[in-house]
């Protein structure tokens, strides 16, 4: 196959993975990891400018290029963060050199899988990729081999595989639905074809398929009540993985859902996917908001906040319409950046304080000002307070919803408020008050965290017109 930016996005991580699997020595491998992600990022960015032609397996269009760039970017920053994080883990001996090698290899495999899932033009291929991503993350969650880690990984594995299985069944059903209209063979699984012909599909089959896909990929998105794997996986895995999980993997699954939603949207006879997504979204939002109150583990708390935001995003896309879709996209981007930034901060916090228990962390702004204020800024952003990006998306979602469906908007607002109260209940005791826990200086690079926050901040006030046009196109595509 021709080697261009598109294949680069796939090949670089694959090759890097192979290399990292064999190379010894954490320092070099960490660097190599960063280099690989950088290269991938550059390739992805170049996709903005040169669109490679659409094949029957790979595809780049307005919708997924946004996701690709976001994914590769967060992947890059996370690799930078993970370098300093893993170093500390080695010192404390929580990880052995061999497991670090495994970790780096898996990291690249994960990148590969996610990129593949995003640029796949074939629903089967996309399914394979997501399955792959799931399995790699399962392995990484279990990497610490503690009881809790194993239990989390096991739970993640079981629930994830079931979800994946359901998604596969849905995929098959889509094929079945497409076959009469498109004809047998490869074409019946190719996006670009499917979207064109979706009007002629059997609506009943489409509905059935969507139910399975919604539950299957919804499990990966972490929508309640399919969310169970998410908090533990975030809490027990290495923090960089938590960042990637929250920031990227959930998005990838959501991306898949959106694709299928577009299919249903084209077909007149099929049931509207909106209400289902709206319902699931609201359930997740309110549920996660209440779950924030009784959290004792800082990483698990932010995992629940991810569920909350996935709920908001799903809700926005479910509502549909140019403004809501725009808001959904914006919210997704902002959430990825903010949540990963928060996990960067949390990673350092847990390392300097030597614990994840909220009760043992206190007065962070006294002992580690940069870290503390960074964390606060992140929480302020994630809570939807201005002048950061999520405020804009929430503003658009709520205001555009209230005029259309007041009741829904009221529930939404209620969930947001409850969630905010829950978050600050904890963050107050973490960041303020008398310092608790050790106050040794953190050997950490704050660059990724503050880079993310800076972008989020800027986006909250000013969005470059090019990006806006981009988002508006995509919002139009989503219908």
């Amino acid at each position: 196959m021709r080697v261009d930016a598109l294949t680069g996005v796939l090949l670089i991580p694959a090759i890097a993975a192979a290399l990292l699997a064999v190379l010894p020595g954490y320092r070099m491998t960490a660097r190599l990891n960063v280099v690989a992600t950088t290269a991938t990022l550059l390739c992805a960015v170049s996709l903005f400018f040169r669109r490679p032609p659409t094949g029957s397996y790979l595809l780049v269009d307005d919708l997924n290029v946004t996701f690709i760039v976001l994914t590769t970017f967060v992947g890059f920053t996370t690799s930078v963060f993970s370098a300093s994080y893993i170093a500390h883990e080695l010192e404390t001996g929580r990880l052995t050199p061999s497991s670090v090698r495994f970790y780096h290899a898996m990291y690249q495999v994960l990148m590969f899988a996610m990129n593949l899932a995003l640029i796949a033009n074939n629903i089967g291929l996309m399914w394979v990729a997501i399955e792959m991503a799931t399995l790699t993350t399962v392995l990484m969650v279990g990497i610490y081999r503690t009881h809790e880690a194993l239990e989390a990984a096991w739970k993640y594995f079981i629930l994830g595989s079931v979800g994946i299985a359901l998604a596969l069944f849905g995929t098959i059903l889509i094929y079945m639905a497409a076959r009469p209209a498109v004809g047998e063979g490869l074409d019946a699984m190719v996006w670009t074809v499917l979207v064109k012909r979706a009007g002629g599909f059997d609506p009943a089959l489409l509905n059935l398929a969507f139910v399975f896909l919604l539950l299957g990929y919804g499990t990966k998105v972490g929508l309640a009540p399919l969310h169970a794997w998410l908090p533990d996986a975030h809490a027990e895995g290495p923090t960089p993985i938590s960042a990637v999980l929250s920031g990227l993997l959930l998005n990838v699954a959501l991306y898949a859902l959106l694709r299928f939603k577009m299919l249903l949207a084209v077909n007149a006879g099929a049931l509207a996917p909106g209400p289902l997504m709206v319902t699931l979204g609201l359930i997740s939002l309110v549920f996660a908001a209440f779950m924030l109150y009784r959290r004792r583990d800082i990483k698990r708390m932010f995992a629940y906040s991810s569920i909350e935001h996935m709920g908001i995003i799903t809700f926005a896309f479910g509502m549909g319409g140019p403004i809501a879709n725009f808001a959904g996209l914006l919210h997704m981007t902002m959430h990825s950046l903010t949540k990963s930034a928060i996990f960067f901060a949390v990673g350092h916090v847990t390392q300097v304080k030597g614990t994840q228990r909220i009760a043992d962390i206190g007065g962070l702004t006294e002992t580690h000002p940069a870290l503390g204020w960074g964390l606060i800024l992140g929480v302020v952003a994630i809570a939807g307070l201005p002048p950061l990006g999520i405020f804009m998306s929430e503003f658009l979602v709520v205001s555009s919803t209230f005029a259309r469906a007041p009741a829904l908007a009221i529930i939404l607002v209620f969930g947001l408020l409850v969630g905010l109260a829950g978050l600050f209940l904890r963050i107050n005791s973490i960041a303020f008050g008398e310092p608790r826990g050790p106050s040794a200086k953190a050997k950490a690079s704050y660059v990724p965290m503050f880079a993310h926050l800076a972008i989020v901040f800027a986006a909250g006030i000013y969005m470059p017109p090019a990006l806006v046009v981009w988002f508006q196109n995509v919002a139009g595509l989503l219908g």
Partner: protein
Amino acid sequence: MSRIDFDVAHLLAGTLVLISFLELYQDRLYSLLNVYALHALVLAASVAWQALIQDAPHLYVTAGIALVFKAIVIPVTLHRMIIKLGIHREIEKVVGVGFTMLAGMGLVALSMVVMLRVTHNADPLAQEDLAFALAVVLLGLLMMVTRQNAVSQVIGFMSLENGLVLAATGAKGMPLVVEISVAFSVLIAFIVIGIFLFRIRERFDTVDLQALDQFRGERR
């Protein structure tokens, strides 16, 4: 297609559902494993038959995978594992057999109803096939829900995947992609499960999930 083709395919698919019921009924790991092997065997047969009547040779690969891996390798390995772990005691079900059976019936009925709504312009074979496949999937899920033992859960999961394979092969002319992915996922699943069971054993000499549940998050 001729009448006989349809009948045989129908028969095999139906048998698969029946065997799923058998699995639900089993309450010893040994017998469960054996029944699962049978399940895989029938799957292989049905896939092969599909390959024959659709004259799609690549389906024979799938049939082969089903035969070799699911019907032989996995049961044997799990058998070993069980011996190694020394789980000879009964599977303590969460809910009684009777109820499980009833639920199974309900699920089969449900899958029929759901699938048969989709009658027009899709060939009847595919319809039946899908209906049975859905039934198998749901039964597998039911099994995962009603069993506590990790091994039996894994078996439930794999019979669920059998249902997927059935559906995939039933979908006429579905590209190779799917078989590959299925095999691939089975493989991965197998490895991961292996790793897991191994780890789990060295941690807590049992595969009973309740032992795992004690370490659920925030119970510190």
